[in-house]
């Protein structure tokens, strides 16, 4: 909400600056921002609904009402600034503003990596201080006996384990 108000303020030009901003803020601050009346149609900035249910600025002041009256006539009489002001009355953000990305992804990725690192620390601590000894079947002597037995059994003799052992010379190929 804050950024959109700043955008509206920053992108107005000329005479109609105060027309669009004041009532825009009034629309936003009609009541407490936390409580939205969901029983009436609401304004939304969505790329897939180009025409929202209600215009962005609903409580028009006198100047804006005059502009709306002028809008009822031929549009060729409207100046460029008046057209822009009318646009800003009925829309909060333009499509370009809606589609603009932000740098939020950098924060997200940074946060993800940070917590992954923290989890890594926790996991290391757990391995060092919580877990007991590894079973004897993972000791080097046992692994040696296990490998010898696998070679005796000719495990995967065609393209796998025993294929890499030279049985004549009794060593790995």
């Amino acid at each position, binding site marked *: 909400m804050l950024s959109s108000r700043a955008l509206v303020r920053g992108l107005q030009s000329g005479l109609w600056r105060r027309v669009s901003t004041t009532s825009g803020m009034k629309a936003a601050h009609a009541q407490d921002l936390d409580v939205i009346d969901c029983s009436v149609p609401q304004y939304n900035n969505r790329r897939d609904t180009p025409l929202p249910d209600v215009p962005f600025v609903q409580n028009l002041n006198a100047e804006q009402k005059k502009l709306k009256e002028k809008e009822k006539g031929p549009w060729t009489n409207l100046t460029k600034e008046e057209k822009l002001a009318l646009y800003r009355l009925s829309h909060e953000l333009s499509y370009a503003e809606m589609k603009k990305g932000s740098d939020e992804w950098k924060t997200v990725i940074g946060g993800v990596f940070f917590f992954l690192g923290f989890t890594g620390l926790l996991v290391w601590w757990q391995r060092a201080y919580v877990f007991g000894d590894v079973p004897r079947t993972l000791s080097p002597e046992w692994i040696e006996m296990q490998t010898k*037995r696998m070679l*005796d*059994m*000719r495990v995967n003799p*065609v*393209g796998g384990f025993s294929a890499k052992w030279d049985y004549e010379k009794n060593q790995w190929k």
Partner: protein
Amino acid sequence: MSLPKPVMRGLLAKRLRFHLPIAFTLSLIVAAAFKFTVTEPRKQAYADFYKQYDAMKEFNAMREAGIFESVRPSGE
């Protein structure tokens, strides 16, 4: 400000006409590549292995190593 009317119909057909031949050719290429780099060498390796395979010799070697329970090494 009169823009030309955009294309309203046949969008899926146009996309398929472009992408389907590419998809089919790529799939065929991947399948052929897998066949000739993985399955054919593997079949050849098995054929070569069993051409020179002496089952009794291998069996006796395994028996002497002592892995069987039904036949112990000839020494015992």
